[in-house]
């Protein structure tokens, strides 16, 4: 029960933080980007025999999400300052 309540509180905070994103429409990629990725996929498949492309994507994703998180935090902090 204690853990459940704590997790519910954490979930509540996360829900509030993420709320602006949930109001956005679903993400879609420009068809040209989709075509580009699909085309690249066929070439990467060959390279992937030796070099782990999915791992590279994961690492780049970690970097990207971390930087986005820092940027978002700084943005919220800036808004808090504006509000006094």
């Amino acid at each position, binding site marked *: 029960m*204690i853990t459940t309540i704590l997790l*519910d509180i954490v979930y509540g905070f996360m829900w509030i933080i993420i709320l602006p994103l949930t109001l956005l429409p679903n993400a879609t990629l420009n068809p040209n980007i989709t075509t580009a990725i699909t085309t690249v996929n066929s070439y990467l498949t060959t390279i992937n*025999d*030796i070099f782990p492309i999915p791992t590279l994507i994961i690492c780049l994703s970690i970097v990207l999400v971390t930087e986005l998180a820092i940027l978002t935090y700084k943005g919220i902090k800036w808004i808090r300052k504006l509000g006094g």
Partner: protein
Amino acid sequence: MYSFINKKTTIGLFILTIGVLLAPQITHADNIAAQQTIYSTSTPQGIDNTGNQTISELSASDWNQVQVFVSTSASTLRAVMHTFTGPNQTGVETSTSTDITPVDGDYHLYTFTFDAITPASTTASYKLFINTIGGGTESFKGSINPDSYTGGQASIEPTKDFYFRIGKNLANPNTGAITITYPTNGYTGKYFGLWTVDYNYLATTTGIYWVEVDYASSTQTLFDQFITDPNAGVYSDAHSIGSWGSGQLVIPPGFTDQVITTTLASIPTGDYYAKAAIRIQPIGTNISYIATTSPIIQISITDGTNPNVNANQNNNATTTDPYTQCNNLTFLDTLTIPICKLSVFLFIPDTGTLSQFGNLFKTISTKPPIGWLTISIGLLEGINGTGTAATTSQLFIVIPPITDPIKTGIATILYLFTLIWLFNRIRHLAI
């Protein structure tokens, strides 16, 4: 109240949020290797009855059209797509196309349009049925080109059903397709002989056609020759599939899903490399040649007659429910069981509480910017191919015993560099 949301609290919540959001994404990406891609926007090709190619659109992510060459005397044609969401063609859901009125009794390429193929899934398999309405007979030629999928496969049942599956390796669709689909790793018997080979091939010459299976023990030093030489087989066995004329599709007799060639040689248990081929002996000659070859698979056959499984294992099955597990306590049970149950009640969260985080991620994974990332990763699914143990790629001769450790090493280094970067980034974070 305002001081409650101080700097440390905010940082903590952000790290927690990012961690929870990132974890399923990483898991999802790690599962790429286990999945087959069905998402494609490239243009698949059908092969008409003269061997010419026609471009058609077939995309699983936007999968609403299929093109098939049909010759029919029926008044109306209709396509029905079965989507199997479970294993062994279970969990079927159907989608029906709009009706088409055939041009005449000759072969024509017809485009069957669906409102939606549901569900489009990376793990589903599909079957397409062409129904004739208003009587009449029908026959089909050509195939949806599977090379639009990374490792797709198409084939045809001669009299009724146009059939294709996702997720099998494919040889050049211009010359045919052949794959070994069984055995896979697992228990079989002390000796194994039940090879299963899927194939289709548009005959360009009149002759006798054979399915040939070549195999080599992985412990043999000759297996590298077996891999690099498409005509080499340390051991071979062939199964006649009959005579076919020019322009005919070579299809397994009695074809349903696949041909089971029980006449091929039995091999003892062990580790093997194997490949299948279509061999042609033109009429009037005594010389045969290999027309198309499957990718090489690696199989490990274990004696199923003596598996290392305890027959009473199921009787000893234990529940994983922590609350019920408390009843297993024997030491001072009248005291420890209630304490255990109280601890579980207080500190073990229920599954609903945990799953709501997953639902939160599902929601956020469809929204920008993480949604863009999710779509991109989805498009890159299948990059690991079909998991065949040894294949000849366009750039490298891939020998798994050599290339797999290299790949694992590079992956480890990448993860290590990322962790070092993350550590330094957070250590020098100026907020």
